[in-house]
Every structure is written in C-alpha cells, then in structure tokens.
C-alpha cells in the first residue's frame, strides 16, 4: 500500500541534510521503495495568488466570463468558466508556463498564453483538482475560493503562500510494516536507512482527567483487545488550521472539521487509527463493544447503509450501533459544528475481523487498511494523548475522563539473536557491533547473553517479528544489499535431473513448429458451453468453487474444445492453417488431486482435400514416432462419437490406445460454428513419455543396385492402400517396399473406382538383379493384384 510522505515532516524526526533525491535513493535501497518524487515548489511554479477585481460576460460564450485579476504588479484578463467566480474573491492563478491538469485529468500540461473564443486570457483560475489537490472540497464547475483559506496578497507565489517548499514521496509500504504508515515510524526507519539521528516525539502522557467522568466502556467482543476513550468537554468544532489541512491534503486526505482532522492527523503521524464521537449521541454515556446483530442496520458517515452481523465488531451504546469497529463511524454519532463534548476512541481490533468485515459490507477506509495489517495495543496511550493535546490546542476544551479497557495485557516479545547465524545466511562478514547497532537504531532492545544476545521487540513491530531469523533481514537490508558481492553458486551440482516429460514436451513443440504447425495457447478454464458443444458433460470436468465469470467455470479435461473455439475465431481471417496445442488437461479423480495429463492436439482446419489432410497428419505423426522411437499402429478399428466415422483412425502403441487421428465429427464442427472440415490428431503424450527416446538407428546402405518400377492399377474406391501394399510386398521376397505415387479419379476412371500408382522397390542382398528377374517379379505382382483385388493394370 502506498502513502504520500512529506519530506519536511520526516525531517522533523530525521536529522539529515540529504537532497530529496539522495534521500529517496538511500531509503529505497534499505527500506521501502520510493516510487516517485514530487517537488511541490515545482508543482506550483508560475502560480500566484490573484484577487478578482471585476467580472464581465464573455462576448462569444454563454458559460464563460472574463475576470480582471490583480496578480500583483498588474491586472490581467482571464477567461473563466467557474460558476462561483465573484468579485474580490482570492483565487489561485496558474500563469503561462505552469503545469496544470485539465479538469483534474491524469496528465499535466503546460499552460500557454492564449485566446479563448476571441478573448485574450493570461493564464487560468484553477480548481483544486487542476493543481493536483483532489481532496479539497470544491463543487463541480467551481474554482478554488481561497478567500477564507489564506490571506496572502495578490501576486504572492502560491508555493510561498502555502508554505510548501516541500517534497512529497510516494512510498510503497509493505504489508508487514503498518508502523511505517505513520510519519514517526517512517522517520525511524529512514533515520536508520540514511544513517542519520532519529528525533523522537516529545514524551506524552494522559492524566486521568480533570474531574470524575460519567462514561463507561464495556468489552463484550474479545476481538477488541484494548479500548481506550478520552472525553473532552467544551470544544468548538470549526475548521482545522491551515498547517494541519495542508498536511492532510498533500497526503491525499480530505479536511472535514477540526476534530475529524485531528483523528486523521494522528493516524497519519502515528499510524494508529482514531475515531471521535459526539458525546451527546451516546445513550446513557455507555459505550459497548459487541458483535453486530443479524439484520441490524447502520448509516455510515458516507451515507451508505450497511447491514451488520455477528462476524463484525460494532461500537454501540445500550440502544443502538454507533460505528463499525475499525472500519467506519456512523453518520449520527459523528462530530458536527454543534458538538461541544467529544469522546475520542483509540482501540485495537482483530486484523482478520476487520479485513473480512470490510469485504463483507463492501466498505473500505484508511482506518481499515491499517487495522487489517495488525496493530499493537501498546500504541494506544500515545495516540490518544496526542489527539487530546491537539484538541485542546485547536478546539479548546478540557480533558474530563480517560478510560482504558485492556483485559489481557500483552507481554513484550523477546527472541535470542546470534550474529554468527545472520552472517552465515547473508554470506557477508558484518561485525557483531554493526549488527547490534542496526537493531538498536530500529528500536530493538539488545542485551548481551552468555551466547549471543536477547532482543526485545518494540511494540510497533510485534506482529512483524516472529522469530530470530527476522533479525537477519533487519541486519541485511540496513547493511545494504547493494553493498554485498554477487557470487555464482560454486557448490555441489544438484542431485536431480531435468524432468524428462518437460524436456519431451518442449522437444515436441519444436518438432511440430518445425513441421509447420503454429501453437495455440488457451486458458485451461473453460465454460459449460464449451464443454457441452463438444459433447463433454460438465460432470467429467473439474469445477471451480469460485469462478471469476460464467465463461471460466471448469478446468478442461480435453484440449479440443479450446482448439475448436480458437479455430472458429480464426476462420474469418485465416481460412485454413496448421495448428497445435500442447498442455496439461485436468482429469477429475474419485479421490484427491486431479490427474494432470499432458496432451497434444495438432491438425489442419479449413480442409478442402480430406485425403491429403489425413495423409499429411499421418505423415507427421509417423515421422514423430520415427524420431522418438515409437511405433504407432494406426487402424480403422474403433469407434468414437466425436470423430467422423469413415475418416478416422485410432492410434495405439503396443496395443495401448494413445490417440485418434481424423476428422472432427460434423456435429461438433457445426456446434462451434466452423465452416470447413477440421482434421486433428489427439495424442496422450503423457502415455508416450516413458517410451520416448532420441532414436537414431543405423541401417546399412544396400550393397547392390535398387530397382524401382511404377505401376498404375484401377481398383474399387474402397480398396485401401494398405491392402494393395501388402499384396505387392507379399508377391516376392525381392520386393522391399511399396509406396504411393499418385491417386487419381476423374476423366477416364469409372465412378466408384480409383487409379492408384504405386512404386515397387526391389533389391537383392547378394546380387545385382537382372532385368529378366525384375520383369518376372512385376508379372507376379500384377497377377496377384488382379487375383486378390480385382485390380486392372492401366496403360
């Protein structure tokens, strides 16, 4: 979580002369990240206080007026659309050359001297958001009325008038360090990081109050660990002073009234959220901290109505709820201009209750963000004392009563500490003295023991420090990671090896890309529609308990629905392509975790020539098998509704089914809205991994000449090539191979028939074949083909 921290404020507690840039650099290296630096004097450069002298209607625009503004040495015309513009109003004038945010947008632009609809305008009269102060109260289409805010004369520079010769740091505070969300804690951290002295706050303590008070506090919910209250009488609630408003504004907080501002200021200063009640609104002067009641309603400060329940801690009186503990106060119990007696609350609530409660009622606040990080009850007395001190100073009044309910006081945490262990872990020789010094500066109390040290954890780090090892981090970061050497591990090699399945998966992806297939990479989460469109019952897929949206509800048990969905999206732009996806699918098991099975799908969509597409995919698969030492058996035997009956083959290895190759059944092609046939191979890669190897087998080259002869035969359409090939191969043992050269149908071929041109390869292991021998073999081949397959030799 990020905060905006004023460098001037920090310097009240850190004795340093570093420039803002140097400070930010050193601080980021050892503590938390300064993400940006905003120089306020630069932000307000070329901006002055102006006083509106006279106002005239713009001649060419209904909604614009032309103000004559005294900017010190002269009076200038400025065109302005502000609806609240009035004579003698003190305003913020941005002169040409300054940078503003148009209508409070995100980008800063440099202002030019210009003319607006034909009228010259020297600069701009600004709204607060136009100079980056979004939290200043200001109506829509209004400009910032500074008349009551500041009494600087016309022409005074804004930076000087606001006394903001300051720099704001935008710092990311890690969740374990709520103490650094307050300026004091941040300063302590910073002092150690930049090697400067820390200047603590002057000691504060609370007297019991000047007279006996009538208020009581009862803790009925043990999720409130400690509750302190202070009653201050006789206050006058007006606006808070400018110095306080300014600090709140630049930190991004909105000034409300003096009391609310004080509670926010203390939170900003000390990191302890506070709340203030108007004492009048508390029935019977009795505060009860209890669980919310089911169905109980409360109107919050921001007007939102929330329904409470027992999981939420509530601050109440005997009659009604007053506030949602640690999250937001109620509208009716807050301070107003009429408030005369206030009750300050400083309490410690359970972090988890606050976090879950905030989510449950959907209300967020700065207070809640602090509480949910875990705060210490020991922080309360100082925070309460500070609030009372400021209240008396700003609103008058006197302290009448202090209440402290703290049933089980925490004990300070103490852990052993061994500098040697820290050195071993860090790998740098940091001396005992240096380590102890770092811890001490951060507020830890370090005591020497017989072996090592005993370290007492300060209350503001109670939640963060859990064990001795945490001290190592304090030492390491303050020593500076940038001061440590960079060393490559020189120790023993690892005991394990690369996971073979991952190696093979990557190899296979590269193989497929090399073979011309482009890779799809889909979300593993799919919708019920995706599954059902592919005929998969959602019951066979792993369901998400808390899906993000209705189109991501199940984990896919098959890659094909994702692939088909992707094909559908692509077909309009890329009519056909070779694609693949290789990923784990998640298969529900009866018990325990799902099976994560690596699957691959590759194929071609937008197919025009089915035979060619099938041969292509089959060829890729067979070549893949050749390269990985796997002998695929590809047969027609099998049945699967997902695939086109006549155009599908089943793939097995050693009798074990491992996949399917063929055309996606037209029903499913149609259900996904795909126009042209899709041919896919779906392979269970997981089943192949154990058998995959880089197969390089040497076969001796033939010693005697190889003879090839092509013959074209006319056969029935449904005579499969494999039948022809087996007849040819079986004809004579000199035949070593039979491959296909051409398939032809069309002119000259009767319908229901096809012409198949095959190439017969002959070779003898021990002699050169004579042409007579070759002719004899071919005669036998032709005879066998005619006899067994009714084949007729063509041409």
């Amino acid at each position, binding site marked *: 979580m990020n905060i905006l921290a004023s460098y001037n404020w920090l310097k009240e507690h850190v004795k340093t002369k570093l420039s803002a840039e140097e400070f*930010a650099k050193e601080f*980021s290296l050892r503590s938390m*990240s*300064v*993400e*940006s630096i905003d120089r306020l004097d630069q932000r307000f450069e070329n901006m002055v206080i102006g006083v509106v002298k006279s106002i005239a209607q713009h001649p060419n625009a209904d909604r614009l007026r032309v103000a004559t503004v005294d900017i010190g040495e002269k009076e200038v015309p400025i065109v302005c659309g502000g609806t609240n513009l009035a004579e003698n109003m003190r305003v913020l004038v941005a002169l040409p050359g300054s940078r503003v945010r148009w209508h409070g947008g995100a980008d800063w632009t440099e202002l030019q001297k210009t003319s607006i609809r034909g009228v010259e305008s020297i600069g701009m009269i600004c709204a607060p958001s136009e100079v980056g102060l979004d939290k200043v109260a200001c109506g829509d289409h209004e400009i910032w009325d500074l008349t009551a805010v500041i009494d600087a004369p016309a022409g005074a520079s804004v930076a000087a008038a606001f006394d903001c010769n300051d720099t704001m740091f935008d710092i990311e505070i890690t*969740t374990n*360090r709520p103490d650094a969300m307050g300026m004091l804690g941040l300063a302590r951290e910073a002092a150690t990081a930049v090697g400067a002295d820390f200047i603590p706050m002057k000691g504060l303590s609370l007297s019991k109050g000047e007279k006996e008070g009538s208020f009581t506090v009862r803790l009925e919910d043990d999720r409130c660990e400690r509750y302190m209250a202070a009653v201050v009488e006789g206050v006058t609630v007006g606006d808070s002073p400018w110095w306080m408003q300014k600090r709140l504004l630049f930190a991004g907080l909105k000034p409300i009234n003096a009391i609310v501002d004080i509670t926010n200021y203390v939170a900003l200063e000390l990191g302890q959220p506070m709340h203030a009640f108007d004492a009048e609104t508390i029935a019977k002067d009795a505060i009860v901290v209890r669980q919310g009641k089911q169905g109980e309603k409360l109107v919050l400060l921001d007007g939102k109505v929330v329904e409470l329940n027992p999981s939420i801690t509530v601050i109440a009186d005997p009659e009604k709820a007053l506030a949602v503990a640690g999250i937001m106060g109620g509208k009716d119990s807050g301070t107003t201009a009429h408030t005369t007696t206030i009750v300050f609350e400083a309490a410690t609530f359970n972090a*988890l209750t606050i*976090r*879950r409660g905030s*989510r449950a009622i959907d209300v967020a606040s700065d207070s809640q963000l602090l509480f949910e990080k875990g705060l210490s009850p020991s922080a309360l007395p100082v925070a309460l004392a500070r609030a009372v001190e400021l209240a008396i100073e700003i609103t008058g009044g006197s302290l009448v009563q202090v209440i402290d309910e703290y049933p089980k006081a925490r004990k300070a945490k103490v852990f052993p500490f061994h500098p040697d262990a820290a050195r*071993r*872990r*860090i790998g*740098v020789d940091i001396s005992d003295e240096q380590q102890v010094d770092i811890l001490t500066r951060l507020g830890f109390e370090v005591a020497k023991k017989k072996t090592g040290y005993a370290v007492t954890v300060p209350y503001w780090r109670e939640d963060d420090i859990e064990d001795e*090892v*945490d001290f190592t*981090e304090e030492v390491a970061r303050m020593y500076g*990671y*940038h001061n*440590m050497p*960079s*060393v*490559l*591990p020189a*120790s023993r090699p*690892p*005991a*394990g090896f*690369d996971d073979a399945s991952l190696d093979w998966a*990557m190899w296979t*992806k*590269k193989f497929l*890309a*090399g073979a*011309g297939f*482009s*890779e799809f*990479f*889909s*979300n*593993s989460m799919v919708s019920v529609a995706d599954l059902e469109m592919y005929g998969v019952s959602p019951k066979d897929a*792993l369901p*998400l*308990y*808390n*899906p*993000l949206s209705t189109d991501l509800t199940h984990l896919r048990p098959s890659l094909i629905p*994702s692939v088909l969905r992707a094909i559908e*999206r*692509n077909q309009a732009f890329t009519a056909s392509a*070779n*694609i693949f996806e290789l990923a*784990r699918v998640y298969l529900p098991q009866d*018990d*325990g*975790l*799902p099976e*994560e099975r690596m699957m691959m799908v590759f194929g071609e969509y937008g197919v025009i020539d089915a035979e060619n597409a099938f041969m292509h995919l089959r060829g890729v698969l067979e070549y893949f098998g050749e390269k990985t030492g796997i002998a695929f058996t590809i047969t027609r035997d099998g049945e699967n509704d997902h695939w086109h009956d006549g155009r599908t083959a089943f793939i097995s290895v050693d009798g074990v089914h491992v996949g399917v190759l063929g055309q996606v059944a037209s029903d499913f092609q149609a259900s996904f809205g795909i126009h042209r046939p899709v041919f896919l191979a779906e392979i269970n890669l997981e089943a192949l991994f154990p058998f995959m190897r880089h197969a390089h087998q040497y076969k001796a080259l033939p010693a005697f000449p190889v003879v090839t002869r092509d013959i074209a035969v006319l056969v029935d359409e449904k005579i499969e090539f494999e039948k022809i090939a087996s007849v040819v191969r079986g004809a004579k043992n000199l035949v070593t191979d039979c491959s296909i050269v051409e398939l032809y149908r069309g002119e000259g071929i009767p319908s229901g028939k096809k012409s198949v041109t095959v190439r017969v390869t002959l070779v003898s292991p021990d002699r050169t074949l004579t042409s007579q021998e070759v002719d004899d073999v071919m005669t036998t081949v032709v005879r066998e083909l005619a006899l067994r397959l009714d084949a007729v030799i063509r041409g």
Partner: protein
Amino acid sequence: MQDALLQLQTEALAVFLNVKTLEELEAARVEYLGRKGRLAEAMKDLASLDAEARRDAGKIANDVKRTIEASFQATEARVVAGAAEERQAQEWLDVTLPGIPPAVGHLHLTTQAIDEISGIFAHIGFVRSRHPEIDWDYYAFESLNMPKEHPARDEWETFFVGDDGEVAVGEKGKIVLTPHTSNGQVREIEKGELPIRMINIGKCYRRQASARHLPMFHQFEGLMIDKNVTVTELKGVFDYFVKRYFGANRATRLRPYHFRFTEPSFELDISCAVCEGTGKVDGVKCKLCKGGWLELGGAGMVHPNVLKAGGLDPNEYTGFAFGWGLERTMMMRSGINIDDIRTLYKNDLRFLTQF
C-alpha cells in the same frame, strides 16, 4: 599415302577452325574422328601397304591422328565454353519476385520464453522440475509459512476447486489452483534429493482479469538449497539471469520487501530500458517504470519454517527461492508493446504467426 594423310590433317584442322556450334562440332567429330570417319578410313588403307611402307606411313598416320585429336579437343573446349557463355547471356530472372517463406510453424511467445529462460538457468546448473498446477492448500500456502488468515488464502484471490457451494477438501486441505509456482518448493524438498537447484515453470491462476492481469499466467520459480547457501549467491544468480536475458547493460537492484515464505525477502528490480534508469523521459516522469526501476519479482532466503515443512534442519541447510511472472518478464524485455496482455492467449493466428 603420306600426302593423303597430311592432306586430311590440313583439311580437318581448317574445318575445326570454322566450327561454331555444338551441332557443327558433333558433325566434324563424326566426319573425321568417328568410327567410320575419314581418319578411320585412312587407317584402314594402311593395311594394304607392304611392311616397310606400312611402318613409315604408320608413324605419320599416328602423328596425324594425334594432331587431329588434339585440335578437336581444343575446338571442343572453345565451342562448349562459347555455348555456355551464350546461354548465360540469354538467361535472366526477375529478382523482384517475392520470396517464398519457409513453411515453418510458430511457437507461442510464452513457449519461446519458457525455453529461453530454462536454458539460461540450465547454464548455471538449475534443472527443470514438474509440479502440480492443481494442488493442496498445504503446498500452496500452509507449508509456506502462510498462516490461515493470510489474505492470499481468502477466496477472492485464489481459485478453489469445488461444486455446489462446497470447496473440495482432501488429505492435505482444500484443493486450489496454484496461485504461484511456490507450491513446488516443499514438494521438491520432500523428494529428499539434495542439494537442490530447481527451476519450476508452470501455470498459475488468480481471480483477476484486466489489461495487465490474467486469470491464467505463468511463473518461473527458482529454488536452491544446500549447506551454506547465502544471499550473495542469490544476488549472483539474479545478476547472471538479468545480464543474459535482458542484456549486459542492465543494472540490477535488490530492494527489501516482505513475503511470508522467505526471510530476508526482497524484490528484484532491473533498470528501465526506456528512460535508461533515470526515471524521466524528456523531463517528464517515465511511464513505464518507477523511478528508473522495473520490478522483476520477489525473492528471498527460504524461511526456516519452509525448510522444516520439507523435513530439513534449518540449522544445517539454507537456501534461496524466487518466483517471477513469466509473461511480465517476457514483456519487459521484448519491447513488443502489447498494451493488453490478454492478447497473448486469444489464439489469433494473425498475432501468433508474427513471432
């Protein structure tokens, strides 16, 4: 006879001199040197001479034969070369015709990054491990020193498996879609094979979806455990990776941070390439980075409680771990400027085939 032979020689040489084309060359060869050519005929006539005359004439005949053959060879070389030259002079092609790209496929950007990143870590001895992407709460959180109430365990950031309003629960807690690859840490330690130098790249899932965040993304997790592993070695490994993956000119920074499963913990930053680490471009705040630095991801020394969960004695073993977003890392380098990260997994071939 001898005159006749010399006459033949003179005539042949004169004819060869005028031969210009391959056709004329072949005709000349047949005429004079063919099996039934003039020289062969003349040789045949030698047989009719008596022995002495045959010896004298034979000598001359051989000289004539050699001379004619040599002349023919020279002629042949001249004509063939000339013919080749002429052919080349006429040959031409249009060099502005478009190239035919090789019919290769395209690996997804993410696959390319996985391959490259695991390759870099392989150089320094890290081996790739495979761990579940759907796992027990125990491995995803509990064993990583994340107490029950840790925000990451709340359902609004992590996906759980379950149906009908009930989260699936088993021997080691709830079943979650791993929100990070760190679930591999204790699983790897439990294998009991030490020392460990693991790189685990896998899919992760979080309940988020925006131009910058995907519900499914990848992380790469490094884990090194041995006796006496130190922060300085993590720094070394980080520097090595950054210089190899991003380039030798990139600076690195370890910045303190907080994670439950490491102690000490830090974020690893690399200098921004756009503003060259200055944080400003033309005097305006750099839009890509924070003050000149880009966050690569988290890292730290493995928390003693994590080592214990895996059955190791933290007094004997130490280690470091890091887990970085793969897509983020890839985007940081590539300069592809994909403004919406969801484009990566939309499977649009017009996008995919660009890489």
